[in-house]
């Protein structure tokens, strides 16, 4: 069961309310997305820590309704 792009955007925005978020579909199947998140809460954290924060926010859907996500995070 895939996830619509606007649903994914909404879920990310709820979890990272102050972030700039860009979601791009890699394939038009509601299942492969590229996600870019810029949020100052990432400042001082390693990339691994930043990605873990995103993965944890999406843990209900990752690997299940969301098959593949290319992720890029930064603080600015």
């Amino acid at each position, binding site marked *: 069961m895939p996830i619509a792009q606007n649903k994914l955007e909404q879920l990310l925005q709820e979890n990272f309310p102050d972030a700039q978020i860009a979601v791009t579909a890699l394939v038009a199947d509601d299942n492969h997305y590229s996600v870019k998140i810029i949020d100052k809460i990432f400042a001082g954290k390693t*990339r*691994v820590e930043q*990605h*873990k924060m995103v*993965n944890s926010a999406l843990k209900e859907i*990752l*690997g299940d309704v969301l098959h593949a996500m*290319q*992720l*890029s995070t930064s603080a600015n």
Partner: protein
Amino acid sequence: MTNILEKIQETISSNDVVLYMKGTKDFPQCGFSAAVAHVLKTLGVDFHDVDILRDAEVRQGIKEYSDWPTIPQLYIKGEFIGGCDIVKEMFQSGELQELLKAKNIIN
């Protein structure tokens, strides 16, 4: 599970650079694993590859070890660096090269 985590710890601490991947460095079985192996080869890094497809215990264990859900996983001097997205980003920005130089792995 304790044993497998110890085995992973042992592998990571006895090799400067370890890549947990699907397939081997010469015959990757997944595009993401291939991409990271390619970056390391491009930089002339001599690395130890672990094919998680050959060992179900390692395949599960490595995800618990790093608390990271996907393969590939790159370790440098015992530290988990990241998966495909992070490694590619660090390579493109030059951070990976800096890190490898700082750790005396490349010149």
